[in-house]
């Protein structure tokens, strides 16, 4: 139900602007729902509570999805939904820490999140804090060298308080990620770097929850990665079938149609 609500809010925001990274938002909704309503510790009324688990959105253009979950979690007021992407909004098209409660870092220049997460995880260890750092990144960011600098470092410093979530939807701006730089099996690559690696269906809520639990409860001083295979535009069948889904073209009349399709699939 939470995931369904996130999809609905994201579609409503997409309708406000008439465009957006709606494909990614629909695809990652289950992972975000499981993260915010199962895995993460936080206080909606105090987004900077020291004891919270940190959730870094490395992929700035997924902001539409994070705003949806922040509203669902009660961190952002739902009535600001209509301001998405507008002048003076707290919800700019690409996520920025200085604009939005609950948006921990400024993402968007890709390959930054995991390195910042490494520093934050080191800092939490210095403070003897039990909080975890989650970094949500895209499969496209696997092509950035800085991702692998951070991956090596997390193992070197024994960061067992770091969980990296990779959205593997096999789409980047110019086409398929596996046609660019991510052809080698990713879970094997991370495992070879010394991480505890899992790969699950990111649109199977039970599998996502189980993977997040396994990552949290793992013994041993290793960082953890979960690669989520997701389907762009999940939940809206006629959009799922579109060929180019990185930046989805949705005609004005199609937003209502998409919402209607989603409505039909509403969980009881």
């Amino acid at each position, binding site marked *: 139900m939470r995931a369904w609500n996130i999809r609905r809010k994201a579609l409503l925001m997409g309708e406000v602007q008439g465009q957006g990274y709606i494909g990614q938002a629909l695809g990652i909704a289950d992972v975000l729902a499981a993260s915010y309503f199962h895995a993460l510790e936080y206080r909606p009324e105090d987004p900077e509570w020291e004891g919270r688990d940190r959730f870094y959105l490395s992929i700035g253009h997924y902001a539409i999805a994070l705003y949806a979950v922040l509203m669902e979690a009660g961190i952002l007021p739902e009535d600001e939904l209509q301001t998405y992407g507008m002048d003076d909004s707290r919800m700019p098209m690409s996520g920025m820490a200085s604009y939005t409660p609950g948006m921990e870092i400024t993402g968007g220049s890709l390959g930054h999140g995991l390195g910042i997460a490494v520093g*934050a995880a080191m800092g939490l260890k210095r403070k003897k804090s039990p909080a975890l750092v989650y970094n949500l990144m895209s499969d496209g960011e696997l092509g950035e060298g800085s991702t692998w600098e951070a991956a090596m470092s997390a193992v070197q410093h024994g960061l067992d308080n770091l969980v990296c979530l990779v959205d593997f939807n096999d789409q980047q701006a110019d086409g398929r990620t596996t046609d660019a730089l991510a052809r080698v099996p990713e879970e094997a690559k991370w495992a070879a770097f010394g991480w505890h690696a899992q790969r699950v269906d990111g649109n199977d809520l039970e599998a996502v929850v189980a993977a997040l639990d396994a990552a949290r409860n793992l013994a041993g001083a290793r960082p953890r990665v979960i690669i989520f295979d997701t389907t762009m535009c999940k939940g809206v069948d006629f959009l799922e079938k579109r060929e180019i889904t990185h930046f989805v073209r949705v005609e004005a009349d199609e937003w209502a149609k998409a919402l209607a399709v989603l409505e039909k699939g509403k969980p009881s």
Partner: protein
Amino acid sequence: MTLASMARKYEPRKPVQGDKVATSAMIASLAAEGYDTVSAPFGHALVDLARKDERIVGLTADLGRYTDLHILAEAMPDRFYQMGMAEQLLMSAAAGLAREGFLPFATTYAVFASRRAYDFIAMAIAEENLPVRIACALPGLTTGYGPSHQATEDLAIFRGLPNMTIIDPCDADDIRGMVPQIAAHDGPVYTRLLRGKVPTVLTRHKPDYRFRLGKAQMIREGRDVLVVASGIMTMRALDAAAVLAADNIDVAVLHVPTIKPLDTATILEEAGRGGRLVVTAENHSVNGGLGEAVARVLLTNAVTPAFRMIGLPDEFLEAGALPTLHDMYGLSVAKVAEQIRGWL
């Protein structure tokens, strides 16, 4: 490769003959004849501060020994992070530590911070105004290793970055004075660093000199020429002033260790005293550094003295021994004096 060396690539060479042959291996410390030196002033000042402030941590990308951060690593190993040869990670991780309430000092060479890690400094650190201190050795022309190690455009790069405070210290006095002041500053700082045996210059010329963040200070008064200098060029200007005094040329030296924000009030006041030739002197390309910053301040305030710039040319520089290169590119004491004499 530089254009000049490329043109001579296939010319065979013979060893230079003589007693004192300069080589490019002389990179450990900056030669400043006649001045006392202090060992690793940055590292010792940081340890002193770290003993008082729990939040101070040091990080480096495989250049601890070459940025004097090894002093901290040896004195307080639990406050030191070796990030490996990974400058993008170095800056990102420093940002992460700053987010969690620490005061990170991240060290590498100036070329690597300004060129390789720029996007990470811009977005992870500067855009969020995080208190990360980036301290970088080998500024400008302080190594003979050629363009791979010569940071001749670092000030121009960081001057373009909002929120960033930029320091170009002259000597050990500046470095020891600045460490606690930049640590107390609310926001990101980029400072150039002199490492190893670092000369003590400013207190020799002005015994009560103390570094003050954001302030330009007159080190030597003079009625004919005003040199506005930063970094090691303040040292060169002071020595050149002594040379020119023998010719009855009276040179004032205004030391401007904080490049951004610039102390425009002091610069305008000094340059506005009519009659003096104003010369900027910097260990940096003439593009985008102190000289152009001063020129803008003067012109936009309608202060228009005769104006000249001493700085590195808009070129990739040659490899070689530092004394040779400083002569070649006009940064040596003799060449500074010669240029000023020629402009009068």
